[in-house]
């Protein structure tokens, strides 16, 4: 049933030098390389799903949470930062993240995608099974895009648009790309260390969560924070956004398997069950602690569960996923309440409380539930204590790296254009003052 396309094309044969023993061996190796149509179809579908997570999923999830006067500014920031990062990924990001270089950053061999052609192939997790490199680049570009877009929720409703773009370029270049290379790139530091991060708990979520938290501190609190009502203007849109995120996340997680195999099915089922568990956990805890389960709580729980299962989805079993989801629902609820008050930052849309905290919970618990005894895919030599330490170390590296780079990036943006809009513009709302339009007309 499986359609196999053997890549030994006539042109390749013609190109071979005079037949010798070495050439024959090379020919045999080349002959074994396969590109499966099913894999190609899946990775392109998954790419579209990740795009849908950002646009409109994340945009609506965030947009519904701000006041009506700032709706378009959030939609605009998500859309622009996604596009900006995706483009930069093509220009130099792919090369720096996914070519061999040092353990911390790749090389400049493929800037402007030089040398990548329609015939180029990228590795999967199976030897000799390849993907068209273009498909792999597009898939990874959507990850780069959504990670930058996640950060904007932390400083929503008061940051200058130009400062958002300057910050995004610097942080993408000096934080996202190195962390991406360390975790997923050839010879990456954390990859070689043995860290498990299937779909981007460290690279995407902890990374963005920390950058957001640093931003919330540096940009400062919104005017009237804690005194005036900053209630979400449309939880309906937030629910729609969270649901689109959930659907899109199957591309993010199961797509990260790169091949349409049983590994993708495992990530797929885990993405379903962990999230359902987190929705119920957050709602239950809210009902018990606050008296009423809220729609915003359920939607936040879904995102928390999705974040937490992201690093784990390829290495834990479905029951492990349910435990991870449940714990993330409880812990992230604390992340946006107790922890948030302790931190004292106006992380407007709880990027750290949900993505940062959920990412840390997921990354560390991956080291627990990957254990074969708990239904995970770890081998017989799997040592939970050691793996938990490796996971924790990858979390620490990400936190420190992201915090330092984010601090510098915000500083540079501050010096160049200033981080905040003037008070008058903040009060009037960014839609009119920064973009010259309003989301709603009566």
């Amino acid at each position: 049933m499986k359609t196999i396309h053997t890549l030994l094309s006539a042109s390749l044969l013609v190109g071979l030098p005079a037949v010798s023993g070495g050439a024959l061996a090379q020919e045999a190796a080349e002959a074994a390389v396969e590109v499966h149509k099913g894999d190609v179809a899946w990775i392109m579908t998954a790419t579209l799903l990740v795009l849908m997570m950002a646009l409109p999923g994340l945009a609506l999830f965030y947009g519904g949470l701000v006041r009506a006067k700032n709706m378009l500014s959030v939609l605009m920031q998500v859309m622009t930062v996604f596009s900006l990062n995706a483009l930069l990924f093509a220009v130099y990001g792919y090369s720096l993240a996914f070519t061999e270089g040092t353990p911390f950053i790749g090389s400049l061999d493929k800037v402007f995608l030089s040398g990548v052609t329609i015939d180029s192939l990228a590795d999967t997790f199976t030897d000799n099974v390849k993907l068209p490199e273009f498909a792999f680049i597009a898939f990874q570009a959507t990850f780069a895009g959504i990670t930058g877009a996640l950060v904007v929720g932390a400083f929503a409703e008061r940051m200058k648009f130009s400062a958002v773009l300057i910050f995004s370029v610097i942080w993408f270049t000096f934080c996202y790309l190195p962390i991406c290379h360390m975790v997923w790139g050839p010879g990456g530091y954390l990859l070689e260390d043995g860290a498990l991060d299937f779909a981007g708990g460290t690279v995407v979520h902890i990374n963005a969560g920390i950058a957001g938290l640093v931003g919330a501190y540096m940009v400062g609190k919104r005017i009237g924070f804690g005194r005036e009502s900053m209630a979400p203007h449309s939880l309906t849109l937030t629910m729609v956004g969270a649901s689109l995120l959930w659907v899109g996340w199957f591309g993010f997680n199961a797509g990260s398997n790169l091949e349409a195999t049983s590994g993708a099915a495992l990530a797929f089922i885990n993405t379903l069950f962990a999230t359902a568990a987190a929705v119920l956990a957050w709602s239950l805890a809210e009902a018990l602690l606050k008296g009423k389960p809220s729609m915003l709580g359920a939607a936040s729980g879904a995102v928390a569960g999705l974040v937490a299962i992201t690093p784990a989805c390829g290495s834990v079993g479905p029951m492990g996923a349910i435990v991870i989801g449940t714990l993330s629902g409880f812990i992230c609820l604390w992340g946006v309440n107790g922890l948030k008050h302790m931190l004292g930052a106006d992380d407007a849309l709880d990027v750290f409380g949900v993505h940062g905290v959920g990412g840390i919970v997921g990354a560390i618990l991956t080291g627990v539930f990957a254990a074969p005894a708990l239904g995970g895919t770890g081998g017989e030599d799997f040592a939970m204590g050691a793996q938990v330490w490796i996971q924790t170390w990858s979390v620490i590296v990400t936190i420190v790296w992201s915090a330092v780079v984010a601090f510098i990036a915000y500083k540079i943006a501050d010096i160049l254009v200033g981080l905040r809009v003037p008070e008058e513009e903040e009060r009037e709302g960014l839609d009119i003052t920064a973009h010259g339009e309003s989301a709603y007309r009566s």
Partner: protein
Amino acid sequence: MKFITAIIKPFKLDEVREALSAIGVQGITVTEVKGFGRQKGHTELYRGAEYVVDFLPKVKVEAAVDDNVLDQALEAIEKSAATGKIGDGKIFVFDLEQVIRIRTGETGTDAL
């Protein structure tokens, strides 16, 4: 002539309109308003942030009536707007000096 302003629960508007029509009140003006009385507001919780909502949505009904139907009108509003629970609203009555129907120029009770 008297001018009646009634603040009522929004979902009681239809019943109040019908009750006033039934006793011959020819027209009313309705406004959606917000306010608080003894019912006070409520709190809303969004993740970690708690907001006190001081002003609850109500409907303001205004009607001008002749003195001889005032008591009937007040009774009609009181009965039709009541639920017996806190937050049913209030009725205010003012003296009305003059009424003019713009189309015809009629004044006083003729214009009601």
